C-alpha cells in the first residue's frame, strides 16, 4: 500500500479543526443511485469541503460479487463522500453519501450501525434504482425520509402518486428538494430530524 511520507500529510486546514470540546458525533446517511445528487447534497450543507473515505472489498464482499470459479480474489475499492456540520461545541453531525448499488452494501454494515436515520435521494427519471435501497433500510429498521431531487427534465409526479409507487407508509415524509441549494438540503435534514423526533414521541407514549 502506498503511504505518503508523514511530511506530506497535510491534515485538516486550521479552519476545519473541531473545537477540543467536541465530545461526540452522530451520523446520517444519504443513499441513492449514481448521479442522483448525494455528493451534491453533502457538499451543499457541509461546513468542510466534502472528503472521501474508502474501503477495499475483498472477502468482505462475499455474496455480493459473484466470483465463484474465479482464481484470484478481486479487490474493489469503494469510495464514499462525506461532510460535517457542527451542531454545538460538543456535538458534531456527519453526513455520508453512500452508493445504493448492491455491490456496495457490505459497506453499509458498519455505516448504518448507530446512524440516526437516512435520506433516500431519488431521481424520478430512474425511480426504480432506489427500490432496493428502501427495502434494505426497511429490513434493517433504519428510519428514513424520501427526498426527490428535482431535475429540470425529470417527470413530475404528485407526492401522493410517488407515495403509492414507492409503497411508503403515510407517516414517511416525501419532499422535493434541490440538492444544490443549501437551504433546500437543510430542509431535507430537518424533515428527517422532525420525523425521528415524532417517532421518539410516539415510542414514548406507547
Amino acid at each position: 500500500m502506498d503511504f505518503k511520507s508523514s511530511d506530506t500529510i497535510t491534515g485538516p486546514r486550521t479552519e476545519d479543526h473541531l473545537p477540543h470540546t467536541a465530545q461526540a458525533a452522530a451520523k446520517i446517511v444519504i443513499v441513492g443511485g449514481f448521479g442522483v445528487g448525494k455528493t451534491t447534497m453533502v457538499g451543499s450543507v457541509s461546513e468542510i469541503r466534502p472528503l472521501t473515505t474508502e474501503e477495499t472489498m475483498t472477502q468482505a464482499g462475499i455474496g455480493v460479487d459473484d466470483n465463484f470459479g474465479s482464481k484470484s480474489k478481486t479487490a474493489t475499492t469503494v469510495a464514499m463522500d462525506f461532510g460535517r456540520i457542527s451542531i454545538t461545541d460538543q456535538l458534531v453531525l456527519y453526513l455520508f453519501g453512500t452508493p445504493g448499488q448492491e455491490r456496495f452494501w457490505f459497506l453499509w454494515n458498519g455505516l448504518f450501525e448507530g446512524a440516526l436515520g437516512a435520506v433516500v435521494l431519488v431521481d424520478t427519471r430512474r425511480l426504480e434504482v432506489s427500490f432496493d435501497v428502501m427495502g434494505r433500510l426497511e429490513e434493517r429498521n433504519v428510519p428514513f425520509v424520501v427526498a426527490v431531487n428535482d431535475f429540470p427534465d425529470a417527470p413530475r409526479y404528485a407526492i401522493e402518486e410517488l407515495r403509492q409507487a414507492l409503497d411508503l407508509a403515510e407517516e414517511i415524509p416525501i419532499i422535493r428538494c434541490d440538492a444544490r441549494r443549501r437551504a433546500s438540503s437543510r430542509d431535507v435534514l430537518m424533515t428527517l430530524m422532525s420525523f425521528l423526533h415524532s417517532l421518539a414521541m410516539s415510542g414514548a407514549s406507547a
Partner: protein
Amino acid sequence: MTPPQRQRRQPKHEPSPPFHEDDLPSVTGERPPERLYILTGEDGERAPIDLVTLIVARADPPPSAAPEQSALIRICQAPLSVAEISAYLNLPISVVTVLLTELLTAELVQARAPVVRQARADRSLLEAVMHGLQKL
C-alpha cells in the same frame, strides 16, 4: 405516465439494540469483519471503532512510532473522526482501524464514542440537532 411500482419490505428482525460488547464475538454472518476490531477505553470497557468515533491525540508522536502512526497523531491534535482520518491519510477505514487499535493500546490517542441511535431515541439529542440545523 405512471411511475414504476415498488413493494414495501418488513424488518427482518427486531431493531438492533445499541451496540453491546457481548454481541461482538458472535460471528453470525451478519456482523462485518471490521466490527471485530475492538478498542479498549480508559475504563476498560470495549467499544467498536465507528466511522464517527472522534479521536484526539494525547501526546506527541514518540520517535519509535511508525510514519503512519506519527501522521495520525499529528493530524489529531484537534478531535477528528475516523472517517476524516481515513480521508486525510488516504488510507482505507480498515487500515485506520488497525492503526487506532495500536495507538489506543499505547495510550497515544483517546477515543470519544459516537452517539448512536437507541431503541428509544434520545429526544433532547434530536432537538439539539434540529436547533443546530436551523442556524445553517
